C-alpha cells in the first residue's frame, strides 16, 4: 500500500480529497476506443504507447475497449445512436463500425497482446453495454488509469461509472483527446472534483513507478530471484 496525491490541487470543491491510499499492484490501464478508424486517436498514440509499455514492463493488466455496433446494420444500437453516431452533417447514411469492419481494430501501434482483454461495446459508457466490470474485478483491479478518445464522450462516461463502482480512477490529461478543447477542459475540470484524479502521463508513471518500486523492495515478487529478501 502507498499514498498517492489525489485532488491535492483542488480547493474550490467541497469534499476534495488530498491523497488516498492505494495498492499499486492492483492498477490497470484502460485504453478507451483507440481504434484504427478514429482520426481523434492519432493525436494521443504516443502517450498511450508509453503508458502501455510502462504497464507491461511492470506486469500490470491492460484492458482495451472498442466502440461500434455488434451487428453490421447497427440494429443493436439504440435508435438515436443508430441514426447519428459519428455521422457528419453531409453523410447520406451513418458510418458503420463493427467487429471485422475496416479499421475497427485497436490501432497497430497499441496492438493488444493475446492475454490482454479487448472488450466491445455499442454504447458510450462501457458499463452500459459490456462485461467490463466483471473483467476488472476478475483481474483484481482497484485502480484504473484511463486514456483514449474521445475525452468527453466514451472516456468520461466510462470513467464516471468506474468511479461510481468504487475504482480509484486516474484520468490522463495528455493521453485523452477530443476535437473541442473546451470540452477537454470541462471533462478534466469536473472529473478532478467529483470523480477522481487527473494526472499527466509523466506524472502517472513517476508516481506509480515510485509506489511499485517501494512495494518491490518490501515484498519480494513471487518466483523472483532478484528481489531483495
Amino acid at each position, binding site marked *: 500500500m502507498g499514498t498517492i496525491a489525489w485532488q491535492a490541487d483542488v480547493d474550490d470543491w467541497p469534499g476534495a480529497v488530498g491523497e488516498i491510499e492505494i495498492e499499486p499492484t492492483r492498477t490497470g490501464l484502460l485504453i478507451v476506443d483507440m481504434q484504427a478508424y478514429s482520426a481523434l486517436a492519432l493525436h494521443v498514440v504516443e502517450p498511450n504507447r508509453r503508458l502501455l509499455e510502462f504497464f507491461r514492463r511492470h506486469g500490470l493488466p491492460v484492458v482495451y475497449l472498442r466502440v461500434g455496433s455488434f451487428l453490421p446494420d447497427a440494429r443493436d444500437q*439504440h*435508435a*438515436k445512436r443508430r441514426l447519428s453516431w459519428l455521422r457528419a452533417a453531409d453523410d447520406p447514411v451513418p458510418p458503420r463500425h463493427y467487429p471485422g469492419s475496416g479499421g475497427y481494430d485497436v490501432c497497430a501501434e497499441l496492438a493488444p497482446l493475446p492475454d490482454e482483454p479487448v472488450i466491445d461495446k455499442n454504447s*458510450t459508457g462501457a458499463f452500459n453495454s459490456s462485461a467490463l466490470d466483471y473483467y476488472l474485478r476478475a483481474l483484481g483491479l482497484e485502480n484504473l488509469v484511463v486514456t483514449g478518445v474521445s475525452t*468527453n464522450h466514451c472516456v468520461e*462516461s466510462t470513467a464516471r461509472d468506474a*468511479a461510481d463502482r468504487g475504482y480509484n480512477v486516474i484520468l490522463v490529461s495528455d493521453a485523452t483527446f477530443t476535437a473541442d478543447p473546451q470540452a477537454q477542459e470541462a471533462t478534466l475540470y469536473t472529473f478532478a472534483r467529483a470523480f*477522481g484524479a487527473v494526472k499527466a502521463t509523466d506524472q502517472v508513471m513517476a508516481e506509480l513507478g515510485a509506489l511499485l518500486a517501494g512495494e518491490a523492495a518490501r515484498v519480494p515478487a513471487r518466483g523472483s530471484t532478484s528481489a531483495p529478501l
Partner: protein
Amino acid sequence: MRGAVPWESPRPGRYAIARWEIDPRRTALLLVDLQEGHTQRDLGWGARLEASHSEIAAYYYGRLEATVLPNVRRLLAFARSEGLQVVFTRHGAQLPGGRDLIPWHWQAQRERQGGAGLLRRGSPEYALRAEWAPREEELVLDKNTLSPFNATPLDQCLRNTGVENLLLAGVLTNAAVESTARNAGDRGFNAMVVEDACATFHPYEHEASLRLASWWVRKTSEEAIAEHSALLRG
C-alpha cells in the same frame, strides 16, 4: 398523443437530430438528490459550505431558492396533474458507519476525515425535502453512487413501467444529474435535463455540463412543460 419535440441543437459539421418523436405519456420526472441536506442552508452540505466555501454557498443556495426549487415545484405539480411517473433519488450512506460505501472511494475518505457532507440514511439531512411529500405511486430510490443506474433498480423499474422519456432535475448538474443523464441516454431513454431546475457549485460547471450534452438534451422547465402539454392535449 405521440409527436415530435425539438431535440439536438445544430453542431458544426455534425449530423444533428433536430426533432425526435416521443410518447408524452411515457415520460417520467426524475428528481435527483433533492434532499434536505442538499437544499437547506443549515443542513448537510449547507452547514459546511457556509464555513469553508462561502462564495459557493452564496451562489448555490441563491440559485436553488430563486430558480431551481420554484421550477421543481412547477414540474412536480405538472407531472402529478398529468399522471406522469415521478421518481426521487436519495444519495448517501445506507449504513450508519458508511460501510456500504466502497472503502477506498473518495466519499469514504471524506467520512474518515469527519466531513459533514455525507448524508446518512435515517438522518434528517438524508430525507427528501419535506415539501415533495412523495406519494404511494411514486418511486423513492436510495443510492450510494452518483448515477442511480449504477446501484439501484431504476433501469428495471423504468422499463417495467413503460417509461421511455425522462425529465431530469436536481443536484448537482455536472455530477449526479449529468451521470444519470449520460446513463439514461446511453441506454436509449430520451433524456431531457431541465436546465433551470438543476444547480451545481459553479456557474462554469453548470454551463459546460449542459453545453456538451451528448445523447441527452437540455430543456427549460417552461419548454418541458409546454411541449408535454401540447402533446398530451393533441
